[in-house]
């Protein structure tokens, strides 16, 4: 897939676990794992907004496009 999810790196930088993020954004760990492993086919704006708010970052910090 050309869209890369860099959730791993951001979580590491913020020192936050996936479980913590899951509790804060109200998305299940299973769904966050799907996102983290790049298996997700789509992401809702509401989810992206919640993640960005909790991790204090921009959507571009989480998602990137590779040729």
């Amino acid at each position, binding site marked *: 897939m050309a869209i890369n999810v860099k959730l791993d790196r951001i979580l590491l930088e913020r020192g936050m676990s996936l479980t913590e993020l899951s509790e804060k954004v109200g*998305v299940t760990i299973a*769904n*966050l794992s*799907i*996102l983290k492993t790049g*298996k*997700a*086919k*789509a*992401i*809702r704006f509401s*989810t992206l907004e919640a993640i960005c708010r909790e991790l204090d970052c921009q959507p571009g910090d989480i998602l990137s496009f590779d040729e």
Partner: protein
Amino acid sequence: MTSKNRLAGFMSVILRIIYIISLVAMVILGIASVVMFFAVPVEGILDRINVDVDLHHDFVMSDFVDVAKAFITAVMFVVVSRCLMVVTQTISDGTPFEYDNADRFGIIARVVVYAELAKVAIVPFSAIVGGLMGVEYGEGGEISLNLTNFLGAGIALVLAEVFREGARLQEEQDLTV
């Protein structure tokens, strides 16, 4: 239990009954077809070589054709009811949009078309075999095309595509975070 599940459960029971009846009919008609297929030509051969054996039957090839057509219909019912039983089960479970269900509707469409074509092909086949064995074809057992079944096959094909698209959307939905 929701009304949708109740309906699916009711349909499942009906389909199970149809499946069992069709299965029994398929076995009986299958045996009858095989027996008649061999009995008619054997009688013809015996007649030709002037062996007078009273086989206590008076079959002609058209009788075999009628029984064989009924057998093909029974096979079609067995496959279709079996597939629909599984589809209604998935509806009951709340997961109807699966690629397997799309494949099942594809199978239904193919079986219906093949069954209709087989019912057409059995007529000239039997006439040729009857001619070779020197037995009369008899009245009845004509070629007939059931256009309603072809229409049903077409609907099943459309449903197959609908379920395939539904399964794709379901997959996308499941992988949306």
